[in-house]
């Protein structure tokens, strides 16, 4: 099995969730993270300052090996805008997955 950590623009979340669900990726966790990058200028009481933090959404997905290609393709298609900041996908191998409710493991646990 593979674990994918997908860092994308938050505006792409809704679409990504739907499309991944459509190709049957069900183990799907997301959280807010930050990356460095140029953001809006801010002003406060006469002083300008740069906000160098950009928000991203991190998606964590665990899939079976044979789903890898399809999942990557889907993310690429949905999350791409072509502008800087579209994000990254990191693929790692997973040794084991358990479903806590039933004790099922691996593919059955997804």
């Amino acid at each position, binding site marked *: 099995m593979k674990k994918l950590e997908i860092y994308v623009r938050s505006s792409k979340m809704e679409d990504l969730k739907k499309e991944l669900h459509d190709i049957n990726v069900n183990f799907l966790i997301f959280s*807010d993270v930050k990356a460095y990058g140029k953001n809006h200028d*801010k002003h*406060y009481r006469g002083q300008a300052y740069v906000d160098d933090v950009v*928000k991203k959404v991190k998606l964590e997905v665990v899939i079976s090996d044979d789903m890898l290609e399809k999942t990557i393709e889907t993310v690429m298609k949905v999350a791409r805008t072509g502008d800087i900041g579209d994000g990254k996908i990191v693929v790692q191998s997973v040794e084991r997955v358990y479903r806590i409710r039933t004790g099922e493991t691996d593919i059955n646990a997804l």
Partner: protein
Amino acid sequence: MEDTLFTIHNLWMMIATSMVFIMHLGFASLEAGLTRSKNTVNILFKNTMVPAVGLLMYAIVGFSLMYPGKDFAGAWFGFSGFGVNPPANALTPAYNAGYTYWTDFIFQAMFAATAVTIISGAVAERIKLFTFLIFAVFYAGFCYPVVGMWKWGGGFLQALATPFYDFAGSSIVHSVGGWGALAGAIVLGPRIGKYKKDGVIPIPGHNMPLATTGVFLLWFGWFGFNGGSVLSANPGIVSLVFVTTSIAAAAGAMGAFIASYALFKTNDLTMVLNGILAGLVSITAGADQMSVGSSAIIGFIGGVLAVFAVLALDKLKIDDPVGAIPVHLGCGIWGTLAVGIFGNLAGGAQIMSQLIGIGVIGAFCFAVSFGAFFLLNKTMGLRVSETEEVEGLDINEHGMRSYSDFVVNED
């Protein structure tokens, strides 16, 4: 003796002025609370500038447009010159038995800004700041005083055989604001994401304690708004107005509570808050003419009406983030009409006059504000860009965040 009573009356009018002033904080709190945190600085900025702009415009032209003097009795329009120019008797009962010239000016000036603030809520979260401020200058300096003159300035609505009656401004303040709100909401269109194919996607307000604070402050201020509209400290009338105002507010809360529970099986705080305001707006036109029972009925109907009006607007895809149109326009009309149905003035002729007033004011305000918004849209642009709207007006128009220490949800 005369001087003593004059001092008392004037004192009440000044205190009432302070209470009407604090309504601007009420509006700011309510509107900020019922919208998203990414636009909070923007709303606070508008609602802070509006009373400032309103007071200055009212000093420069508004007061002279609204109270041009006896020469313009029965007219549609009058103007007695720029600036505030106290007459010789300005500080004596000869000017008015209830207040000095200065009190008169400042009490009226506090009202003027109210109409604009009402609009601010309906166009929130998508209107350009400068465009809105220019509209505010125009509406507070021209549209509101012209309409006010028709009745309170001795104009043609006052001169009807059965004079149009609007005690404290269900029409002259609230629906004047409400019509502008409707025009603005239509010209602007809904916020991105509010109306989708599969229905209405609610956009919850970000701060319920703030919204609630706003409504309580508005109720508090309404004691000055309605109570001050007696234009003296007359014990009988002012105290009756306090009672009718409070009972209508309470009944409005009950009306909205029951209606929204019956319809949605849920206890929606924002509906009850709107219900209180609905009751208050509804009683405003006849607060000095109603019995306790009639006040309760008028307020209750107002509260129910507001709930249905919120639904109706969503059906029409007119997006009003804070419910300004249901409360101020819907109940403003209802309250004005109710003067012909309930209370001391009830009767066919009065209903007729009320309908004339409602119609003329509506036609004028909607046309003028629709025109103004349309023009501004064509020239300066009315709406922020899609990116700005999505990211929030705060960071784009102000370079600031309203809650910089807090973690806020995306979008």
